[in-house]
């Protein structure tokens, strides 16, 4: 695990085995997912995300799928699980950069009823900023 601190954000790279990155910007956690989001990869992402959500007082989560080709129902579990953690404090969960393949899975799962889809992480960050005002 590596931690890099920038001016406005902290970037945490997880387990070598799992490609992915966590970035904390104020109360927002951006989870940049790796190529595959399956049961194997979801274990590390879940663990790491929950640590950050707890310790850094996270209210908004953006799952960025722009580098992701493959997701199965384990990915749905990861997103639903994090959703449950932030919804009670009035937070929200967003997904960005969703490929066709991942989009089909989201649609089938009904997940779009509780999370919002955007093209880019930046759009969501703007949106969250405007909410704060």
């Amino acid at each position, binding site marked *: 695990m590596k931690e890099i601190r920038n001016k406005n954000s902290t970037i945490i790279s997880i387990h070598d*085995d799992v490609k992915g990155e966590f970035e904390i910007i104020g109360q927002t956690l951006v989870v940049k997912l790796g190529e*595959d989001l*399956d*049961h*194997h990869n*979801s*274990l590390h992402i*879940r663990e790491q995300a929950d640590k950050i959500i707890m310790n850094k007082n996270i209210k908004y989560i953006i799952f960025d799928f722009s580098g992701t080709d*493959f997701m*199965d*129902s*384990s990915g*749905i*579990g*990861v997103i*639903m*699980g994090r959703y449950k953690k932030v919804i009670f404090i009035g937070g929200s969960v967003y997904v960005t950069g969703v490929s*066709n*393949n991942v989009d*089909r*899975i989201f649609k*089938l*799962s009904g997940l779009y009823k509780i999370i919002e889809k955007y093209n880019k992480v930046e759009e969501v960050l703007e949106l969250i900023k405007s909410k704060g005002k």
Partner: protein
Amino acid sequence: MDFTNEMKIEFDSKSINESFARTVVASFVAQLDPTIEEINDVKTAVSEAVTNAIIHGYNNQDGKVIISCKIKDREVFIEVKDRGVGIEDIGKAMEPLYTTRPEIERSGMGFSFMEAFMDKLIVESELGKGTTVKMSKKFEKRGD
């Protein structure tokens, strides 16, 4: 011509092998020159069945997962088998959103995804003996 091709793979019940299993099946069915969507359908279905074998069948303990794959003309037949705990009530297990492991964030969508992405799905299971998931899918004819 009646083209057939068969393979069978057995591997350790380890979550790191989930992506390996998908890749193996995907690269076997690649012989049919499928669309990206067809390949993804098969990968998702295999991933669900293999994950189930590892976490439900073997409860994350040691064991072997076996995949048989047969190509017949443009149809693919896939069997995913474990010798794990088995399923008590298959009908219930296959209900959408039903899961016995909500505490590890299973969504209960595994069987639904297999059904959605494949043409046919049959589940056979015996308590204490193990589970076999049989799936098939016919690929589109490719225009040349």
